[in-house]
């Protein structure tokens, strides 16, 4: 295992079980970067890797000096980054990633707390609403009896009859409005699912930031682009689809789910 340098990179070491060539896969002091670079060997048997490297070199026309060319490219890239002042920027970016993760975690925590507060408020409002609705229903029954009584043989003044009728109508409307209010409260509650959806995205971005932090400069001199692509694909972020446009491997709504399942006979 190597040690961390100023960039937080792992200095590759020659463990003896790896290639006998000087291990210079990952660099701390980029000013010492040689013109030629050896492919890093992260895992797998030496023989397999060596064979793989040979095979790759054999398949690429003039591939015998592929690592030499990669080394030159790396040197060019390093020089360009240094001239442009980007290698400091890169180091800054890496050092800022933990802060970015903390900020994202902070957002996730705050939005979660906010969602919980809204749900608590919805529960309280629903409780108040249910109590009011129940009392209104009880009063409505009693006022309906009063209305039936006053309707017989002018037992109330016209103003009294009108008051009874208005009260009955109000209590009836109150019940209907309680239903509407409950539907609105349900909508408010459902809107809090943003916390789950955004939380999943944030969690994946935090994981990605962690990976980036570990791999940022290492990727610059990665000598196996094919493996790198495979690795990137296998680490593809899961979770809510934030942009389904142009994608055929995802569904965009519940109807899509139902259609797919129906086509499969479910």
């Amino acid at each position, binding site marked *: 295992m190597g040690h961390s340098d100023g960039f937080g990179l792992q200095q590759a070491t020659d463990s003896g079980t790896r290639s006998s060539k000087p291990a210079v896969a990952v660099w701390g002091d980029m000013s010492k970067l040689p013109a030629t670079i050896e492919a890093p060997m992260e895992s797998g048997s030496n023989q397999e890797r060596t064979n793989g490297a040979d095979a790759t070199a054999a398949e690429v026309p003039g591939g015998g000096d592929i690592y030499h060319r990669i080394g030159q490219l790396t040197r060019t890239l390093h020089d360009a980054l240094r001239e442009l002042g980007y290698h400091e920027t890169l180091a800054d970016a890496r050092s800022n990633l933990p802060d970015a993760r903390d900020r994202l975690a902070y957002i996730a925590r705050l939005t979660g707390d906010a969602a919980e507060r809204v749900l608590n408020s919805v529960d309280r409002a629903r409780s108040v609403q249910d109590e009011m609705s129940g009392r209104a229903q009880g009063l409505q029954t009693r006022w309906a009896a009063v209305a039936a009584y006053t309707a017989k043989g002018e037992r109330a003044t016209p103003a009294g009859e009108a008051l009874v009728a208005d009260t009955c109508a109000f209590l009836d409307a109150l019940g209907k409005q309680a239903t509407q209010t409950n539907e609105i409260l349900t909508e408010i509650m459902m809107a809090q699912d943003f916390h789950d959806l955004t939380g*999943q995205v944030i969690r994946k971005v935090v994981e990605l930031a962690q990976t980036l932090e570990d791999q940022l400069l290492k990727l610059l001199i990665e000598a196996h682009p094919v493996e790198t692509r495979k690795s990137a694909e296998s680490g593809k972020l899961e*979770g809510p689809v934030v942009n389904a446009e142009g994608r055929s491997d995802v569904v965009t709504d519940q109807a899509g789910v139902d259609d*797919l399942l129906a086509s499969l006979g479910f």
Partner: protein
Amino acid sequence: MTSDPRFLIVDDFSTMRRIVRNLLKEIGFNNAEEAEDGVVALNLLKSSKFDFVVSDINMPNMDGFALLKSVRADESLKGIPFLMVTAEAKKEDIVNAAQNGANGYIVKPFTKATLEEKVQKILQKHG
């Protein structure tokens, strides 16, 4: 199936568990318990009787697919209706869920009507 089926809601986000629980209550199902991942859910399922599982997919420790497979592989649990409620909208996941024995699949965000429709449909089938 009892007239008041007992639900197990499995999701690592407490907000979503609460939303599903409240929606089930509004639909008329008051009997529900919660679990934050597949491991907790499986322990609850083995230690207590449940009639319906509503589960997310992406969860730590044990995800929804692993939970589904464990449930279907367990002789005493394999008949429990299992509804996936998840943000995963990939066709591969939907097919995977169906092939592993899920009885329904809902993508988040969803509506109360969608949940009610799926739950009622599954309950009718499992009479």
